[in-house]
């Protein structure tokens, strides 16, 4: 099976290139001005051909909470968003803290074949914060990193062991940076807005304290710490300093944290309730600067489906988290339109860097010999992100029903078209 993508404007992290792409089976066979015969021809005139997006922080709620989303609907949401590789977090029920569950998750995704699912295993057994998991076994089974996301590891000693042991297995640790002893049952960013609304806040310092601790432990152990969903300006300063000092640290940011600020909460809309919470305009500005100057390595979604019943509650009762996979492209394209980053930066942040961090040697670029994971994006395409387009079982996005600009019109996974706007096809 061969596919030719004609008249492609290829966007890689390091270059933009006009060419035709020949795909043979699952591999990119050639990139040239030639127009070889192919079984299938896609004309990409006027579109941008990106390497398939890699989202290294999603929640698919499978196993155990499949009423919110499962590996299949998660995969469908992913390809509808141009994402061909996803790393689901371990906070499922049961927790992904052993190789059996890891293998099950991968097998389920493979069977449907829309995306590559690369699980993040739990750091501690049952995400209980105490004994670390069998990281060797789990890495062999397919775990690409370890995280107790949502339940940050509070013990410094456990975190130290986790960094040491994961490094031994050539893996790394992702931490949700939050010093929970400073939470006080907070539901939003602590600051002027929380005072105004009378909602208990979470100070940004709880994130900054945890990042400080983790970078020091990375210094001690030489292990790699990846900071999940950075949200505060000072967090970024700390990370920048740690990088300068040669500490093995990387970080990611979510589209909602470079798009929205806490003023959205004025209506007590629970679709804006997430953790870390939306912060101030200057934090949003700092996230944009971090994306621009390279101190942020990765854009990820933290796709966190919750059932409508769970979000249709009083603000302090609703769970944290919003959908992200299908709004990743339009929100990131906003940064390009606003001159914050270039298309090439977008490819670096959503594909090249995650591939590098996750150690995926044949992904992250449109390159001969690489896996044919491709998102054909129309940056000017306007549409309403409504329930008919939404592939998740959940609807917890503040953007649902809103007009968006830019989408992946065709998503190709390992050489096969898996999404053709608006339908998942493979």
């Amino acid at each position, binding site marked *: 099976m061969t596919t030719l993508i004609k008249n492609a404007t290829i966007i890689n992290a390091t270059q933009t290139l006009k060419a035709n792409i020949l795909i043979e089976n699952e591999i990119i066979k050639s990139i040239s001005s030639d127009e070889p015969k192919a079984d299938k021809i896609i004309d990409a005139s006027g579109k941008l051909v990106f390497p398939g997006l890699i989202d290294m922080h999603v929640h698919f709620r499978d196993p155990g909470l499949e009423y919110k989303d499962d590996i299949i609907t998660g995969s469908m949401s992913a390809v509808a968003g141009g994402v061909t590789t996803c790393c689901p977090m371990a906070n499922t029920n049961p927790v992904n803290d052993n190789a059996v569950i890891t293998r099950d998750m991968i097998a389920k995704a493979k069977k449907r074949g829309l995306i590559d699912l690369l699980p993040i295993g739990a750091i501690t057994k049952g995400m209980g914060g105490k004994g670390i998991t069998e990281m060797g076994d789990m890495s062999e089974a397919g775990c690409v990193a370890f995280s107790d996301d949502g339940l940050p590891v509070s013990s410094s000693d456990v975190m130290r062991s986790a960094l040491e042991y994961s490094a031994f297995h050539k893996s790394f640790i992702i931490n949700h940076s939050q010093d929970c002893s400073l939470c*006080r*049952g907070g539901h939003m960013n*602590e*600051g*002027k*807005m*929380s*005072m*105004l*609304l*009378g*909602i208990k806040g979470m100070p940004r310092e709880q994130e900054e304290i945890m990042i400080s601790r983790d970078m020091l432990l990375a210094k001690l152990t030489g292990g790699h710490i990846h900071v999940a969903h950075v949200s505060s300006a000072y967090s970024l300063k700390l990370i920048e300093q740690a990088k300068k000092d040669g500490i093995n640290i990387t970080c990611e940011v979510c589209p909602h944290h470079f798009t929205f600020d806490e003023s959205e909460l004025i*209506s*007590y809309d629970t679709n804006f309730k997430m953790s870390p919470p939306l912060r101030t305009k200057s934090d949003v500005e700092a996230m944009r600067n971090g994306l621009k100057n390279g101190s942020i390595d990765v854009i990820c979604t933290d796709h966190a489906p919750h059932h409508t*019943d769970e979000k*249709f*509650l*009083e*603000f*302090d*009762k609703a769970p944290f988290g919003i959908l992200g996979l299908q709004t990743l492209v339009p929100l990131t394209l906003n940064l390009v339109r606003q001159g914050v980053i270039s298309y090439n930066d977008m490819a670096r942040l959503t594909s090249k860097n995650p591939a590098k961090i996750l150690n995926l040697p044949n992904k992250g670029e449109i390159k001969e010999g690489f896996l044919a994971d491709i998102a054909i994006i129309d940056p000017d395409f306007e549409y309403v992100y409504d329930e008919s387009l939404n592939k998740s079982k959940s609807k917890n996005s503040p953007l649902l029903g809103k007009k968006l600009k830019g989408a992946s019109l065709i998503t190709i996974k390992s050489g096969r078209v898996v999404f053709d706007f608006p339908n998942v096809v493979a």
Partner: protein
Amino acid sequence: MTYTKKDLISTKDLSKDDIYSFLNLAKEYKKLNLEPVKKDPILKGVTVVNAFFENSTRTRTSFEIAGKRLGADTINFSSSTSSTNKGETLIDTINNIEAMKTDVFIVRHYSSGSAQFVAKNTPSCVINAGDGCNEHPTQALLDLLTIFESKGSFENLTVTIIGDIFHSRVARSNIYAMQTLGIKVRLFGPPMFMQNAEIFGCEICRDMDEAVRGSDAIIMLRIQLERSDGEVAFPSVREYSKYFGLTKRRLEVAKDNVIILHPGPINRGVELNSDVADDPRISSILDQVENGVAIRMAVLKTVYQNKFKA
């Protein structure tokens, strides 16, 4: 009456004229309440539900009396007997009561934003009787009536609110309404309850003397001694009263005609000493309670009638 909404959720929604109309209507009702037969059956046949998801005997009683004096059938629903304890959601509870063809909900709930949430999702009238730390608009109106009656006008007044500002819905509703009226509002309280209080645009006082000096009225907030554990609060009741409590001696630096308000119930000897609370020349606490019924009658009548105007 210039107010046109079917709900009263926030004093932010009130213009100067709205506030004066509520106060004027309440003054009428205050006269009625001194009559031997205290009835204006304008809400005859209307069902008013006191939907209290958080305990409050006095606010509930005040609303209940207000509803009854207007001829309404007032029903009390409180969370200790409710199905929310059995996992039913707030909106389900409201919808179920409404299915019995009720007309007005008086909502008291422990979550900020919940009164607005209910109002958005029901065709009934909703009056916010205190939502979490957010607002308590009828309390602000009754405080304003009390201050107006004592001072004769709102011109050139300075009001200081003292205590746990963060957790106080009384503070928020008063701040918004008083700023609309042009009253100068000042705030003072323990630092852990004052973080980011500058957002309200009020002057922040540094100590009790400064807070007391120059005030025409002082609103002492209730310290929630029963507040949920796990929260870092002030070190002790003794020390709270020393630095943040109001006593006769503290009032030596006050204006001669200063009045003291408190939303009740008082923690005697903590935020307010009995020598202040029980001195009728300075304490307006019982006037507040009396005014509460009249204000709630005015609000009930207004929002119910608005429902049919739009």
